[in-house]
């Protein structure tokens, strides 16, 4: 499957989920480490496609609003660059049918 197709597929599926979005991020990355990172694991491991790399600057873009709070990115990042936490109380994903 093409990466783009998968991104679209994820986006369609994310549209089925209810969130209570916070106005500030709960996920922070150490951009210095990202600039040196070749693997870019976060950009393919995340089931919600939260991470992408800005082509121009090389920085990691974090779309924290889509996060499913699974914890995979934190463990898979080879540089331990993700300062991971759950969203604040009451915020984030709300599963009703899982």
């Amino acid at each position: 499957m093409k990466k783009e197709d998968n991104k679209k597929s994820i986006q369609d599926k994310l549209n089925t989920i209810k969130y209570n979005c916070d106005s500030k991020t709960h996920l922070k990355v150490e951009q210095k480490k990202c600039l040196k990172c070749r693997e870019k694991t976060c950009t393919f491991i995340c089931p919600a496609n939260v991470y992408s790399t800005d082509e121009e600057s090389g920085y990691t873009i974090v779309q924290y609003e889509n996060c499913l709070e699974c914890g995979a990115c934190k463990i898979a990042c080879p540089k331990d660059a993700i300062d991971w936490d759950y969203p604040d109380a009451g915020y984030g994903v709300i599963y009703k049918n899982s």
Partner: protein
Amino acid sequence: MDINFNADVIVVGAGPCGISASMSVALNGKKVVLIDKSQYAGSKNMYGGAVYDCALREVFKDEVDNLPYERIINSNSWTFLNDTGSFELKYKDNSLKNAYAIKRFNLEKWMIGIAKKNGVYYIPNTKVNDLIKKDGAVVGVETNLEKYYAPVVIIADGVNSMLAKKLNLRQKYTPKDMLLSAKETLKLDKKTLENRFNLSPDGKNGVCKMFFGGIEEYKDLFMMSFLYTFKDTIMLGVGASLQDLTKYKLNINELLDKIKLHPDISPLIEGSRTIEYSAHLIPETGYNKLPKLYTSGALLAGDASGFINSIHSEGTNFALISGKLAGESALFALENNDFSQSTLSIYKKKLDKSFILKDLYSYRNVIDKLHSRSKSLSFYYPKKIKEFFNIILSADCKSKSKHFRKFFFNFIKDRNIFEIIKDVFAFSKCALDVFFGR
């Protein structure tokens, strides 16, 4: 001590583990506070699909008769998928009544209702950010709102346990330690669902199907998929280790989309519509990477301790019972007014005696072995099974003996003899471990 305790016990996390822990404390007349960060209990949690009667009854007794479940899972199958077909083992027993399909939102809501009725003080919408320590012992929790103090804190905050990390009870996880799972809840008309899965129209019974492999592109990838029937929805999910996903630079949703197209799965979900997508980790740390389960003033239980047997889809029962044992251990400490590490070590003894550490021990090598032989399991044997059945079913007007001989020689020729020996060794080691376990 000059601390003003708000409660006898604080429990962090209102999943099955935390709710069970708080119940066992409250049932003994002690004051217990149960804290969860979610707005609605269960709304952060997902799983495959079934909770087990025995563990539920240990905690909720006869109330289980009123569990608002959707179906009783009484038909189970295990299927090895190859690219074009499958080999299936199935067991169905209409008298079975030990696994209930229920959504987490409804399960946790029901459990919380009973806990509150029994005196548990439940605080939703509140996140524990840290533990409060005094003289080396945990004496409370710091939340986004206020601080709560109690001489024992039971940590049941799930697989990513931030609190176990803060207390240094566990090591940092590595990609090998975790399976990532993604799931879709698929809506399907109830009648169509019942016809398709051969279920009686009284709407009570349901099926659970496990699938191994199915995507030949990634030969070393150990992948499991599951399907549960609910009332008018199907839960379809896949799981693979973070290590494998990283190796193939794969996204778990790609696997989910691929498996949905498999010729053995697509007819099962045809005409359905995705009404929710979800993802969660499953700990594979097991017995070999057991965290420290207790320290002065604190106990660790449920997924936060890696108590799970993913081979048998058992997790909620490990959570419920370890929570109960943690609650009982807290009561023991309260009785003796001693919350030291050595007093709380009774928790480990209780776990040792229960199925939790016994099963974790006897399955300690199974996952590792399955991963190490994943190529055989997901690729080689499914291929051989396909060849075997193609012979049996070919009716090609050729002598069967010749076919069988050819199959046998190919079986050995196609595979390095050492690989076969390694397979035999790995699989018998698993079987012996489990058979002669604790």
